[in-house]
C-alpha cells in the first residue's frame, strides 16, 4: 500500500516539490539577512526552531539521567584482580571485605585483561587529541560550515569513548570523574536555557538573540550568530557528557570499574 502511494509522490530531486516551495524558500532567501549565519541549517535549528532544539537538549540530558538511574550500582565488586606491573604476577582477591594495601607497583586490573595492545594504545594516544580538536572545530564553526553542537559533541564524546576502549574504563574514569560528567551535562543545558532567559530582561522574547547586543562587544548584525554559537557550545557540552555517561553505564552495567 505504501509502495502504491509512492506513485503520487513528487519525483526525486524535483525543485518544485511541495516540501520545497513554501517555508523553506523563505528560510533560504531571508535567513542570511536576518541572522548573518551562512549555514541555513544551523540558522533554522538554533534560531527559528530554537525552542525545539532547547527541548532536544533536555531530551538528551534526560536520556543520560535515565541511564544513570537505571543502571548505576555503587556496590563494590566481589572479586578484584591486581597485577604486579614489573613481573606480571596477578593477585586474585575474592573477598570484597578484605582491604588490600595496594602498593604503587600493583595496579587494579580487569578480569578479561589482555596484555598485547601496544599498537592500539599508541595509535589511539596519537589520534585522540586530533579527534578532540576536530570536535571543537565542528562545534565552533557550525555557523559557517557543516557542523554544530550535536555533531561536534558526538565527536568529542566518541574520542573519550575511544580512550575507554583502547585503554580501559578505569583510565577514562580516572581522568573524567563521574560527578564532573553529570555536572557538564547539566551545565550544557543551563547554558542554552541561560542564554534564552537572559534575552528576557534585555527586553526581548525568550530566545530572542538580537537583544543581547549591549552585552556583546561586536557589531549588532552579528549578535544573532554569536547567540547561536553560545547555544551550540551548550549543546556540545551536554551531548559530550551524555554520550560518555550512556556508554560508561551500559558497558560496565553501572559499576564503572570494568567493561569494554
Amino acid at each position, binding site marked *: 500500500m*505504501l*509502495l502504491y502511494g*509512492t*506513485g503520487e*509522490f*513528487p*519525483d*526525486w*530531486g*524535483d*525543485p518544485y*516539490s511541495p*516540501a*520545497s516551495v513554501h*517555508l*523553506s*524558500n523563505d*528560510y*533560504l*532567501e531571508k535567513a*542570511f539577512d536576518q541572522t548573518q549565519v*551562512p*549555514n*541555513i*541549517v544551523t540558522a*533554522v*535549528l538554533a534560531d527559528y*526552531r530554537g525552542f*525545539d*532544539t532547547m527541548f*532536544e537538549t533536555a*531530551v*538528551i540530558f*534526560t*536520556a*543520560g539521567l*535515565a*541511564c544513570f538511574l*537505571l*543502571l548505576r550500582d555503587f556496590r563494590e565488586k566481589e572479586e578484584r584482580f591486581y597485577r604486579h606491573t614489573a613481573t606480571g604476577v596477578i593477585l586474585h582477591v575474592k573477598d570484597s571485605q578484605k582491604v588490600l594495601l595496594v602498593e604503587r607497583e600493583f595496579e587494579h586490573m580487569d578480569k578479561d585483561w589482555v596484555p598485547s595492545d601496544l599498537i592500539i594504545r599508541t595509535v589511539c594516544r596519537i589520534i585522540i587529541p586530533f579527534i578532540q580538536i576536530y570536535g571543537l572545530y565542528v562545534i565552533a564553526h557550525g555557523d*559557517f*560550515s*557543516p557542523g*554544530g553542537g*550535536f555533531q561536534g559533541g*558526538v565527536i568529542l564524546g566518541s574520542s573519550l569513548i575511544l580512550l575507554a576502549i583502547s585503554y580501559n574504563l578505569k583510565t577514562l574514569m580516572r581522568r573524567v570523574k563521574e560527578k564532573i560528567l553529570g555536572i557538564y551535562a547539566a551545565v550544557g543545558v543551563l547554558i542554552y536555557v541561560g542564554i534564552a532567559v537572559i534575552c528576557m530582561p534585555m527586553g526581548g522574547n525568550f530566545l530572542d538573540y538580537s537583544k543581547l547586543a549591549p552585552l556583546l562587544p561586536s557589531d549588532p548584525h552579528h549578535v544573532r550568530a554569536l547567540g547561536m554559537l553560545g547555544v551550540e557550545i551548550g549543546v556540545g557540552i551536554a*551531548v559530550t557528557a*551524555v554520550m560518555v555517561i*550512556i556508554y560508561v*553505564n*551500559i558497558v560496565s*552495567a*553501572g559499576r564503572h570499574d570494568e567493561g569494554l
Partner: protein
Amino acid sequence: MTDLLALIAAKYNYWLYVILMMIGLYAMIAKNNLIKKLVGMNIFQTAIILFYVSIGYKRDATLPIIENVHGGHGSVIHAINYINPLPHVLMLTAIVVSVATFGVAMALAVRIYQRYQTLEEDELRMRLSEK
C-alpha cells in the same frame, strides 16, 4: 510492466524507504530477541530519516550554506540553487532523539538481562509466569 519499472526508476528513493521501513517493522514485531527488536527500531528510524532527506533534495542544487557571504553582499539568493534545509534540521532532531531512545533502551535491556539472565521474549514470559 515498463510503466512499473519507470515508476520505480523515477521514485526509487521512496521505494527504498518503504522497503527499509518494512524490514524494521518486521524485525520489531516478529523477532524474539529484544536486541534484534532494537535493531529493527533503528532501521525503521533510518528509513524515515532517508525519506525526509530525499524529500529535501533538489536537482542541480548545492548544500544550504550561502556562498560568498563576505565578498558578494547584495547578490540575491535564489532558493532554487540550494537544497531544502528544513528536512535536514528536522532529521538532525530525529537522529538525536533516536540516539537518546536507543541509549535508554539499551540500559533497560541491560537491566532486564541482569534480572532474568535472558533477552529472549518467550523465556522472559516464562520466567514472569513462574512467579
